[in-house]
């Protein structure tokens, strides 16, 4: 049963990757007819990186969301709601436009530090086992600060085109990224994914309470610091390449826990797979925008994700009623 489910999920990833590479379909035969080499280049250097970026970014958002939710013992925590994504955007913008270190490495370092600072701030403000209201308020505060900070950094930037230039990236986009950029997002993401799945048993035992998990021999304090650092690295690096994409890190884990009987740690791997499927599907969907218009992928995930988030809040409220 579980095996069949994983096979279904795996097949969906493969099929969607194929669709992502093939669309827009009509241009491919013409390309291959005129110049087969050019056709191959388009596929290997434009379309494949785009599909792979969607997969790794979606996966790291899903896995990080699941890990953060398990850590804060709260199903509403996620990279965007905790302000990590916004922090990464602020860090990357500051690095690129204010400090002027605009190489992929510089932007990645900015993104990782920004996400790390935002998460550390959240832990400081809300505490390790935050009530939903505290967590959301702290997250809103951090998101507001990072949003304003990003706007300020762009306004103060020496380049007069900074706003226009950064808009596409800030709203989230996977278009026209190079293989180098794919490596900058993908390698940290895979390493962090590997680490997070190894935390799964300890995160499941955290359900029993922090003291009980520690009595079982898990060093929860060290794990908390490591997971914060790991998600900052994974999400920060991905944001520095693809911009901020919201709600995947919230929706992925919630759906994944339906497959794991509610276990928050065990949900990390399925959350990564579901996150990958969601972002890849969203990236396929934005290609059906009206011709000559580009729909930022972050806008689409927000339009679809926000109602889901609201329904989750409402459900929690109703189930908490005496």
């Amino acid at each position, binding site marked *: 049963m579980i095996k069949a489910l994983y096979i279904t999920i795996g097949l969906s990833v493969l099929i969607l990757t194929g669709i992502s590479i093939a669309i827009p379909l009509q241009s491919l035969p013409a390309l291959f007819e005129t110049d087969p080499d050019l056709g191959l280049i388009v596929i290997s250097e434009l379309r494949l990186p785009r599909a792979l970026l969607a997969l790794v970014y979606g996966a790291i958002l899903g896995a990080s969301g699941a890990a953060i939710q398990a850590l804060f*013992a*709260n199903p509403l925590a996620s990279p965007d709601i905790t302000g990590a994504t916004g922090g990464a955007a602020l860090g990357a913008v500051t690095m690129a436009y204010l400090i002027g270190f605009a190489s992929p490495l510089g932007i990645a370092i900015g993104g990782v530090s920004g996400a790390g600072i935002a998460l550390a701030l959240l832990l400081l403000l809300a505490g390790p*086992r935050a009530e939903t209201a505290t967590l959301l308020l702290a997250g809103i505060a951090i998101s507001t600060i990072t949003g304003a900070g990003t706007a300020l950094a762009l306004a103060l930037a020496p380049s007069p085109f900074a706003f226009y230039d950064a808009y596409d990236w800030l709203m989230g986009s996977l278009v026209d990224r190079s293989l180098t950029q794919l490596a900058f997002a993908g390698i940290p993401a895979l390493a962090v994914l590997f680490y997070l799945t190894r935390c799964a*048993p*300890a995160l*499941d*035992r955290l*359900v*029993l*309470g922090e*003291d*009980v998990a*520690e*009595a*079982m*021999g*898990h*060093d929860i*304090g060290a794990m908390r610091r490591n997971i914060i650092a790991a998600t900052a690295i994974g999400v920060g690096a991905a944001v520095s390449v693809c911009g901020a994409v919201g709600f995947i890190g919230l929706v992925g884990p919630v759906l994944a826990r339906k497959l794991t*009987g*509610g*276990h*928050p740690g065990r949900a990390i791997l399925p959350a990564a797979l579901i996150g990958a499927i969601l972002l890849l599907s969203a990236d396929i969907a934005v290609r059906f925008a009206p011709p000559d218009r580009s729909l930022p992928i972050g806008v689409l995930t927000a339009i679809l994700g926000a109602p889901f988030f609201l329904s989750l809040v409402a459900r929690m409220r109703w*189930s908490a009623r005496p």
Partner: protein
Amino acid sequence: MTSRLTAHALSISGRLTPCDLTFSAGSVTMLVGPNGAGKTSLLHALAGLPESCGKVLVDGDDIHALAPVRRVRHVAFLGASRDVRWPLSVRDFIALGLPDQSQPGHIEEVLDSLEAGELAGRRLDHLSTGERSRVMIARALVSRSSVLLLDEPIANLDPKWQLTILARLRSEADRGTAVILSIHDLDLARQHGDRVIVIDKGEIVADSTPSQALSEAVIAEIFGVSRSGGRWVRA
């Protein structure tokens, strides 16, 4: 009697002054003391939580040196919180107490022994506080560890369940386990313990048989109450 747990220079900075303790197989030890006296701190230190200092040996093994999976066979700990954030099923929750997740073990058997067999398939967030307490005790019992450390296991329970749990813990001790629990009810501590440790302001002030440790003088001095005409009154 063989000793199950030996602790040397056990302390928590600011909450527990250094002490040496030994607990033997088959014994039930009651930890009593006023609110904030350090009962939880002592249990945390005996469980080897990171905030504590000192050496804890269980069956001859230093528990700090044991890998997470092996530690579960040595010590089972029940915290004071009955709060559960994730809506797991009772069966899945108890399975988290097992050293090896792939072996379902004897979850049903433990639940049955606490007359909670019918709860196995229910979700934790749909249980009453008392039912949740019993499930959490079942989680601590399921690993059949050498030492049981329980922080107020019978708080939140009605008198019938208090006695049921205490009887169950006695049968656990009869299997050779060292059972150590904190408790507020001095009468139950006296009746059901082989040994009573009285703790006040982070220090052990009495450690003996129930009747000696809970003498009138100690109770009056530490708890500020005394017995008068069959009921407790403020001293």
